[in-house]
């Protein structure tokens, strides 16, 4: 591990950088190492780098969100993690193995829920469960599916088709499907962005309680600051693409027991929130100048803990 550089940050005096990395080598569930993805330009003559030199880790049981503007390759990064896309360069080690394709150990909650519309809610989950445990009997599959439908409060809607469900209910089925295969890693691609604020709030609460009770390792993409602060233990800040980089990693200093209603009363809430807004509004665009004037090390992006003190 490289020694962290100390970054002076004029725009955010409250943000302090530290030299320690929270994730130790052994406990890392996901380790992203030098990841780069480029696409051919429309004329096919050269390549555009979407993001590159991305290094960070996710520990077991940790909830990490990645925040950034659209176009920084967030979804591409998640697709590579899911095994649906391949990196141009670099590797991802998940649970000790290099990712070479999709796996049942990494469940995905898609932005557009991606339920199969000709199947009922129950059948959609059963499709996943049957993929995970092909030898299970019909009753066992049904029982298992029911457990996860109950978990996301969809009891009674088992036999409804996705078209008969509201947006929030569809995404609940998507979440139940992902949890039902008991994956080692849960990947979520802006799962709540298509929902109205009220539904989003209640789904965030449900997700938080399920994750807290199961100790699920989650990597989630979002562009919602409050969502990131409520759910995440750490927030990875990605600059604007093309040539996006991991700018910093923010450690959430709010207590683990935070809820949507009390989180803003904590002293560190606004410093963190302001830090993220400042990043999204200004720094995400000017990051290229920022790194050229400092000793930025992509292998160990600065860790910040904005606080009131």
């Amino acid at each position, binding site marked *: 591990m490289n020694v962290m550089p100390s970054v002076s940050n004029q725009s955010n005096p409250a943000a302090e950088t530290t030299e320690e990395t929270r994730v130790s080598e052994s406990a890392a569930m996901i380790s992203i190492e030098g990841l780069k993805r480029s696409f051919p330009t429309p004329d096919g003559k050269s390549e555009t780098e979407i993001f590159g030199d991305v290094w960070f880790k996710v520990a077991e049981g940790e909830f990490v969100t990645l925040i950034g503007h659209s176009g920084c390759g967030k979804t591409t990064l998640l697709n590579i993690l899911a*095994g649906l896309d391949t990196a141009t360069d670099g590797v991802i080690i998940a649970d000790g193995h290099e990712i070479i394709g*999709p796996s*049942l150990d990494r469940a*995905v909650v898609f932005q557009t829920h*991606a339920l199969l519309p*000709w199947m009922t809610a129950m059948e959609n989950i059963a499709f996943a469960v049957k*993929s995970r445990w092909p030898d299970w009997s019909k009753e066992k599959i049904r029982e298992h599916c029911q457990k996860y439908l109950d978990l996301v409060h969809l009891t009674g809607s088992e036999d409804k*088709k996705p078209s008969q469900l509201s947006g929030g209910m569809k995404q609940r089925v998507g979440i139940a499907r992902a949890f039902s295969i008991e994956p080692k890693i849960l990947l979520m691609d802006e799962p709540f962005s298509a929902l109205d604020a009220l539904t989003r709030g209640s789904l965030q609460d449900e997700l938080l309680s399920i994750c807290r009770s199961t100790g699920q390792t989650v990597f989630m993409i979002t562009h919602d600051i409050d969502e990131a602060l409520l759910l995440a233990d750490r927030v990875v800040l990605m600059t604007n693409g093309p040539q996006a980089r991991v700018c910093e990693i923010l450690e959430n200093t709010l207590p683990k027991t935070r809820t949507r209603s009390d989180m803003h009363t904590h002293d560190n809430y606004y410093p963190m929130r302001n830090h993220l807004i400042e990043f999204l509004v200004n720094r995400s665009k000017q990051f290229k100048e920022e790194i050229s004037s400092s000793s930025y090390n992509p292998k160990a992006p600065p860790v910040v803990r904005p606080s009131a003190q």
Partner: protein
Amino acid sequence: MSNKVKLQALMVSLVLFAVFVAGWHVWVEAQKGPAVDMDPEYAALMGITAKGGSAMPGPLEVGEAIWGHIINPFYDNGPNDKGIGIQLAYSIARVLTGFFLACIVAIPLGFFIGISPIFQRAVDPFIQVLKPVSPLAWMPLALYTIKDSDMSSIFVIFICSIWPMLINTVFGVAGVRKEWLNVAKTLEVSRSRMAWNVILPAAAPTILTGMRISIGIAWLVIVAAEMLVGGTGIGYFVWNEWNNLSITGVITAIFFIGVIGMCLDFILAQATRLVEYAE
């Protein structure tokens, strides 16, 4: 649709039908003018038309003929006088045989072409050239190679049914939403489960639409094909009635062809509804 609208539509349908039948009746009556001044020998040769009468039947005659066929559809008085039920049964059997053979070929073939972008491009020029060929243009080739008139008409049905099904299957399979495929991929679904449980149900409405177009075309083509090959079938029946100058028989046949075509379309429409899904 509300019941009131349905009832009103039914009333308008009945009125339109009554106007049509009345107009037809008046027109036919008007044709029956005074006898034409004509050479008596020629008049004897021409039969009823020479006496000022028209071969064009009125609605009552046609109704009577249709009723006669309905109550006795399966009589058989030799090769040129069979009941319309028998003739229709021959035609339906040929259409269904050709259609199902086309299904067996077009749907699996379309499936494999649809999942392979390379094949899609490679096969496209052949489909584009063969699709606009009138199925009847294949008839001489079929007769020469198969050497059997019955099998040749089935082959013509096969050829005309295959294109809409093939094109729609390719289109349906190639157009399966990427996110559904991605879901299946992340669940490490086997190739056969992917094909049967994801791609096929997703493409089924498009495939069924292709089948519905095909059966419609097949039913159009069988009449012409049977006129050419002769022997049996509703197409032959029409041609035979024309040779007899029985316009009543021709109109009766048109009526039955329409009804059977509607039934075939209805069956496929119901089947399409079974596999349809709302997104």
